[in-house]
Each structure stands twice: as C-alpha cells, then as structure tokens.
C-alpha cells in the first residue's frame, strides 16, 4: 500500500464524497474526475468542518482548494495547525 501524507480520518471523509473513486485516492487526481460536483463539495465541506472541528473560511471555498486531494489536504492541514 502506498503512503499517503494525510490521516485516515481525512481519507475516509474524502472517499465518501467521491462516487467514482476506487481504492485510495491519489494525491494528484482531479477530484472532479472522481465525481466531486458542486453539491458534493457542499457536503464535503460540512463534514470536514464537523468531523475535524475546523472552520473553512469562505476565501478558501474556491475551485483551487478542491482541485486534488493534495490541494485540499494542504488547506485542511493549515487550518488544523492553526486550530
């Protein structure tokens, strides 16, 4: 199994919102290709905030943040570090 730089909790939440993902989500795959649409993004944000106890500020709620697992983890880990 390949190493991922993020914890299992993040990987689990992410996988639940990617209907087309099979197995572990690679860091560089476009989340939209794995089935993340705009409504999926809404529920992903709410679950990340709820489960990881963070608040994602509106200025991070842009396409670049949700581009890949790696970009989303970069934003999330920043918020966790600051929490």
């Amino acid at each position: 199994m390949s190493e991922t730089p993020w914890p299992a909790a993040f990987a689990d939440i992410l996988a639940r919102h990617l209907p087309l993902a099979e197995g572990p989500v690679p860091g560089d795959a476009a989340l939209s290709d794995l089935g993340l649409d705009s409504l999926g993004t809404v529920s992903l944000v709410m679950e990340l905030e709820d489960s990881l106890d963070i608040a994602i500020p509106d200025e991070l709620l842009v396409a670049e943040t949700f581009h890949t697992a790696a970009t989303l983890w970069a934003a999330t880990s920043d918020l966790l570090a600051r929490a």
Partner: protein
Amino acid sequence: MEEELASAYDAARAVLPVLEDQAADTDRSAEFPVKAVDALRAAGLMGLLVPVEHGGSGGDLGDLVAIAGLFGSRCVSTALIWAMHCQQVDCVVRFGGERLRAGLLPRIAAGEVYLASVTTEAGKGGHLLSGDAALVGDGDQLRIDRQAPIVTGGGHAEGFLVTMRESPDADDHRVTLCYAERDQLTLETTGEWDPLGMRGTASAGMRLRGAVPPHQVVGEPGGFRAVAVESMIPAGHLGWSAVWLGAARRVLSDVLGMVRARGAEKVSDLTADRLARARIDVELVASYLASVRDEVLAHRRAGTSLAGMPTQIHLNNLKVAASELTFRAVDGLMQVAGLAKGYLRDSPIPVERVFRDLRSAALNYGNDRLTTMTGALALLDRDVTFAPAGLL
C-alpha cells in the same frame, strides 16, 4: 463599434416586422417559423457570435442579450429559437477544435447552418450534466444512438450539438458534447408537438442515429461540464432571460398604450397599482440581467472562470427570477387588459399568447433543479457575495 457588429444591429431592427407579422400564425399552427428564421439567416444574424475572421459579426453575450430582447418583443418562439442557436454557437466558438471551427463557423455565419440542441434525455429528464446513451467508438468514428424528447427546431436544423455519455463503460457524469451534421444522422420524429405555449419552437421529440468523426467533439471527451459552465449555461440563461424580458416589456408597453387610449377617463388606483407592479417586475429583471451580463463579460475579458460559487449562483438566480417575474408581470397585465382586450386569442394585444409562452420559462430547464442547487451552493458563500466589485 466594429462595422460588422453595427450592421448586425441594423439588420436585427430591419427583420422585426417579419417576426411580428408571422407570430400569431406560427402560434396557431405550432409550426416552425420558417419565414422568420429564413429572414434571420439572410440578414447574417445566425452568425452574431461568430468571430469576424470566420465571417461573422464578432458579437459577444452583451450583443446576444440586446438583440434577443428585440426579437422577444415580436415573436417569443422565433426569439428563443435564435437565442438557443446562438447559445450553441458560443459553445463551438469557445470549445470547438480548430478544424471544426474553420469548417463550421463560416457556414453558420452564412446562414447555412441552424444549430439545434440535444441535452434532455428520457431517463435522466432535464439533468444537464449527466448522460445515459453512450458514444460507441467504431474505427475512426463515434457512433450515436440517442433519444431526444424535446428538440427545438429539430425538423429544420442543419446541425445538432448532442450530449452523450463518453463511452459505454464511462460513468454517467462523463458527458461528451459532439456536433453532428444533419446528413450524418438518420432522424426519426417521435411524438407530437401540441404544447400550451412556445408553439413555434416546434420542439417535437426525435431519435438520432449516426456517426461522427472525433474532431467533431466540442471540448474534451467526457468534459462537457466545462463547456456547460463556461458557455452553454451562461449564454443560455442570459439569452433566454433577455427573450422573456423583451416579451413582458412589450406587453406592458401595449397595455400602457391601451390605457392611455381610454383618453381623459381617470385611471383607477387599482389599475395604477397593477401597472406599477408590472413595471417593478420588468425593471427588476432588466437590472439584474444587466448586472449578471456585466459579471459574465468581465470574467470573459479577464480570462477568468465562471465556475466560482457567486457567479454560478447569480446565473441560476437570473434564470429563476426572470422566468418568474416576467410571467407574473404578464399575468397581472392580463387583469388590466381584461377579457375582451387580453384573454382572447385574437385580442388586439398579444397578452394571451405571451402569457402561454412565458409559462414555459420556469420549465425550460426546470427552476426546481436550479433552486435546489442554488440553496446548497449558498451555504458555501456565507458572505453573500454580490457581483465582485473588483471585476467590474
């Protein structure tokens, strides 16, 4: 303004009487307005959005809005046919490959190709971003076999933009948009077209079968979402809203003329209130349409994406608000015009026809689909962002 564009505006004003003269007959017969569309073809107006280097007028979505409003004031069916055609053209201009653009755009500009749209599908209903019927690779061709329950002007189109699932084993969200020529297809009409309004759009169902070469794919294979977000949805919502607004504004204008013609007789407070309410609805749509138009044009000038949350919300809200408020305005004006001057088929003012036409607006891409989407997206924009000031 460029010379080509200025003459497009002149041509648009010149064809208005043709649209007006056939509107009632087109509505009665529920047949495609061949004469009116031929006039648009001859006047070069089918190429409004085609770049000048490909023989068109080089117009932008602001020009689409302006001219769609003029046409909507004369014949709502013809106006919608034209606006939807321009919407398809915008997709080809922005997402077609060089070979497709060079071959197709000059023919569109010359009025030889009217482009119809095939996005709705039996199994999935109106949902734009999914597909059931799949493209099947066959040597160097892509085979199409597609049921299309509602195709505006399908019987008269020389070309079709069709959404298909990318391949038989692709997920239903991997949608490919492709261009098909009429003579690349075998077309079968399915079902009758006898609707309440928008009767001239002759939007009967069809089955399309045939094959197209891969260079006729518009955008990336499986990548229709980007075409929809950057082109088909914005051009559609702006163009349709402009058509509906033009229609409601014309009815308001006619009813004002009717009330004025009553002469010295004092206008009752009730009539005044009803006129004011219609005016408010029409003004609200006009100013919101202008605001969203400017937001889209600014993004396009800056080369930035329309996919941001606030812009998507604004484009959805425009469609929902324009469809509801223009219909409400005409409904109220029916009450002012009364039975003899408003409700009858042959009333001197086309309130009855426009009322029926505008009832379709909330269904022409279902408002329920848009509001459920917008409500969810709104949760990601707690700031409630209006058109970004920095952009305009």
